[in-house]
C-alpha cells in the first residue's frame, strides 16, 4: 500500500499543528463557535447528540496492521473502547473530548492517518472496491489511481468550498462493489478497442433526499487525462452548482436541471482547455505510485488445500467459507470478509480488542493488509486458503466469525438517533430486531443474498435507497416511523428502491420484512433466483400487497 514520504508527513503534521492552535484559540475564547465550527469540520470533528464525533479517514478503505492497532489504541485511550466503521470506508469515534483531538490527530499522523476532508463541502475520501488488488474479476487495481486522486484532491485550493460535499468512487472490476453510480463522480475501469485501460466516467449519482443514478458522461478517459477531466467536472460544478438551497446543491441536481448533454458540453469545453496541461499524468508517476501497490509475494498454490475440502465436517466453518470468502486472482488465495454484523450487535462497530485481533491476523495471514468495505465490514484481502481455518478459529474466539456476508443480516446501518444530531429516528435497534428475527444460519441460508439498508433520516447515510429492502426512519408527531422501500440496487445494475406504503412503527418492521421475504420465497423460480432478481422479474406489486396486508 501507499507509504508516506517526508512530504506527506510534513503535510499531515502541519495540519495537526494548525488544528492544535485552532483548538487552543477556541478554548481560550479567541474564536467563537461560529468561527471554529468550519475549522473543526475540516478536521472531521462533528458535534453529535452526546459528545463530539471524530471521523478518521481510511483512504479508499486500505489500512495496514499498525494503523488498525493505532485506531484500537485511540478507542481505548481517548474513547470508550470501540469505533464505528462507515459506508465511506472511514471510522468514527463517538466520545472524544475537544482538548484530546489534537493529540489523537498527532497519534494518527504517526501511522500516516488523518481526518482531513472527512467533512465539509470538499472532495471527500475516495472510495473503492474492498477487494481491489485481490479480486479475481478485476481488470485493473484501482488503488494507484485512487491514491493519485487522493493527493490531487487533498486541500485543493480551488475545490475546498464547493456548493456541497463531493464524493468520488472508483472500481477496477466489472462487478461494481463500490456503488460508483451513486457517487458524484463514479469511475469504472474500461478497456478501449486497442486494449488500453482507462476510465468510464459517471456523474450525478447520489442518495440523500433526492436519490439519483449517475449517468455516463464520458465513455473513456485515459489515465494521463483523468485528473484534467476531474478538474474540469469539478470546475463546472464549483461555478454552476446551486448555492441557494443546500438540498439542491449536489452535482446530481445540476445534472438533473441542466441535462446531461449541457453538462457534458460544459465539461468538454473546459476539458479541451485543461487537457494536456500541468495535470497530465506522466506514465512514470503512475508507475511510481503503482509500485506501492505491487502484489505481495504470493506463495505458489498448494493443491492439498481447496475451499471445497475445507468446508467438510464443520457446518459453521463451511458457512463462513461459503459467505465470507471472495474469489482471489491468485490461485490458492482468497479474500476473507470479517463481518461486523454479529446478531444483535451494532452494525459496523468493533471493539479495541477486536481491532487488535484483526490487526494481528492481517500481519500473520494477509501480508499486513486490511480493508474496510462500504458495507461496514473489514476484509483480509490476501489469505492463503490453507490458513483460512486458522483465521476462522481466531475470529470465532472474538465474536468476529459471523457467516453472513451478503445475507439478510449483513445490514448497512447508520448510527441513527442514538448518536446523530441530524437523525429523526433510531436505526441500530431496527437492525438488531431484524438480525434477531432472521439471524439463524438456516433461515439466512434459505433466504440467500438480500441486502437490507437502514437510515435514520432522509440524508440516507444508511444507503436505504439501494437496499434490496430499504428502511427509512422518519418522525411523525413525536413517534418514530419507518418507511420501507423495495428493489434498490447499488451494483452495476443500479436501481433506486420504491416506497412500499405508509410508514410503520418500529415493532412492526420485522413482521413487514417477514412478509416481503415470504412473498419472495413463495414466488422465486429456483433457489438460485435471488431476492433482487425476483423483484426485478415480477415487479413490486405482489410485495406491495404483502406489505399492506396486516
Amino acid at each position, binding site marked *: 500500500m501507499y507509504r508516506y514520504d517526508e512530504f506527506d508527513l510534513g503535510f499531515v503534521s502541519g495540519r495537526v499543528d494548525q488544528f492544535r492552535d485552532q483548538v487552543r484559540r*477556541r478554548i481560550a475564547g479567541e474564536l467563537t463557535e461560529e468561527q471554529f465550527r468550519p475549522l473543526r469540520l475540516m478536521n472531521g470533528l462533528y458535534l453529535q447528540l*452526546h*459528545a463530539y464525533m471524530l471521523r478518521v479517514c481510511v483512504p479508499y478503505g486500505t489500512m495496514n496492521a499498525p494503523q488498525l492497532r493505532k485506531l484500537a489504541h485511540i478507542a481505548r485511550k481517548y474513547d470508550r473502547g470501540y469505533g464505528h466503521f462507515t459506508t465511506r470506508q472511514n471510522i468514527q469515534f463517538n466520545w472524544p473530548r475537544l*482538548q484530546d483531538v489534537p493529540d489523537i490527530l498527532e497519534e494518527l499522523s504517526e501511522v500516516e492517518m488523518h481526518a482531513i476532508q472527512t467533512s465539509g463541502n470538499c472532495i471527500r475520501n475516495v472510495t473503492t472496491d474492498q477487494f481491489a488488488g485481490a479480486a479475481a474479476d478485476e481488470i485493473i487495481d484501482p488503488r494507484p489511481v485512487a491514491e493519485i486522486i487522493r493527493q490531487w484532491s487533498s486541500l485543493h485550493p480551488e475545490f475546498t468550498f464547493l456548493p456541497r460535499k463531493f464524493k468520488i468512487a472508483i472500481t477496477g472490476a466489472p462487478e461494481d462493489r463500490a456503488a460508483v453510480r451513486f457517487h458524484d463522480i463514479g469511475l469504472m475501469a474500461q478497456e478501449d478497442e486497442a486494449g488500453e485501460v482507462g476510465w468510464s466516467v459517471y456523474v450525478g449519482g447520489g442518495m440523500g433526499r433526492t436519490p439519483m443514478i449517475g449517468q455516463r458522461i464520458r465513455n473513456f478517459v485515459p489515465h494521463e487525462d483523468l485528473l484534467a477531466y476531474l478538474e474540469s467536472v469539478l470546475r463546472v460544478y464549483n461555478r454552476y452548482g446551486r448555492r441557494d438551497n443546500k438540498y439542491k446543491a449536489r452535482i446530481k441536481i445540476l445534472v438533473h436541471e441542466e441535462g446531461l448533454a449541457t453538462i457534458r458540453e460544459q465539461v468538454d469545453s473546459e476539458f479541451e482547455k485543461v487537457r494536456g496541461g500541468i495535470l497530465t499524468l506522466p506514465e512514470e508517476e503512475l508507475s511510481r505510485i503503482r509500485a506501492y501497490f505491487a502484489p505481495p509475494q504470493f506463495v505458489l498454490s498448494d493443491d492439498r488445500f481447496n475451499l471445497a475440502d475445507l468446508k467438510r465436517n464443520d457446518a459453521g466453518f463451511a458457512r463462513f467459507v461459503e459467505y465470507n470468502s471472495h474469489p482471489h486472482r491468485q490461485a490458492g488465495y482468497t479474500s476473507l470478509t470479517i463481518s461486523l454484523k454479529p446478531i444483535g450487535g451494532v452494525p459496523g462497530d468493533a471493539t479495541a480488542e477486536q481491532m487488535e485481533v484483526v490487526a494481528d491476523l492481517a500481519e500473520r495471514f494477509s501480508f499486513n493488509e486490511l480493508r474496510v468495505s462500504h458495507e461496514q465490514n473489514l476484509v483480509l484481502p490476501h489469505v492463503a486458503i490453507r490458513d483460512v481455518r486458522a483465521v476462522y478459529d481466531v475470529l470465532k474466539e472474538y465474536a468476529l466469525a459471523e457467516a453472513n456476508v451478503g445475507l439478510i443480516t449483513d445490514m448497512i446501518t447508520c448510527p441513527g*438517533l*442514538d448518536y446523530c444530531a441530524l*437523525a429523526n429516528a433510531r436505526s*441500530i*435497534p431496527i437492525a438488531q430486531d431484524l438480525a434477531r428475527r432472521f439471524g439463524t444460519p438456516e433461515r439466512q441460508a434459505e433466504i440467500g443474498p438480500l441486502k437490507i439498508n437502514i437510515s435514520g433520516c432522509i440524508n440516507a447515510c444508511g444507503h436505504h435507497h439501494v437496499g434490496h429492502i430499504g428502511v427509512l426512519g422518519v418522525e411523525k408527531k413525536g413517534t418514530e416511523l419507518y418507511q420501507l422501500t423495495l428493489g434498490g440496487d447499488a451494483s452495476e445494475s443500479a436501481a433506486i428502491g420504491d416506497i412500499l406504503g405508509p410508514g410503520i412503527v418500529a415493532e412492526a418492521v420485522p413482521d413487514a420484512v417477514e412478509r416481503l421475504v415470504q412473498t419472495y420465497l413463495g414466488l422465486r423460480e429456483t433457489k438460485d433466483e435471488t431476492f433482487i432478481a425476483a423483484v426485478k422479474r415480477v415487479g413490486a406489486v405482489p410485495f406491495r400487497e404483502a406489505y399492506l396486508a396486516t
Partner: protein
Amino acid sequence: MQILTANELLSGASVYFGDDRHWHQDIQRARIFSETEASELDGLIAAAVATKRLISVAAEKVRIDKGRVVAQRLRERIRAEGPTSPRHAVQPLRESDHVSL
C-alpha cells in the same frame, strides 16, 4: 414548559441550566420555565453563548411526568439519557467542564 439545554465545549456533553445558574448533566436539575417566564430565555441563551463555553444552546419543551422532567421530543430524551441500544451512559463532565452563568 421549557428547559434550557446546550452542549459543553470541552466534553461536548449535554447540559441543562439549573435553578442555581449552574449547567448540570442531569435533566432533573433543569430549571423549568413556565409560559410566563419564556421571555427570560432569550437573554439567558445570549448569556450562555457569550460564555464561549456552551454550544448549540436551545430551549426545549418538556412535561412533568410523575414528578420527573421528560423532554417532549424523543431526540431530547435520548440526548438526556444516552444511546439506547446498547445503553451507554452520557458523556461525563470533568471538573474542568462545569459552567455557570
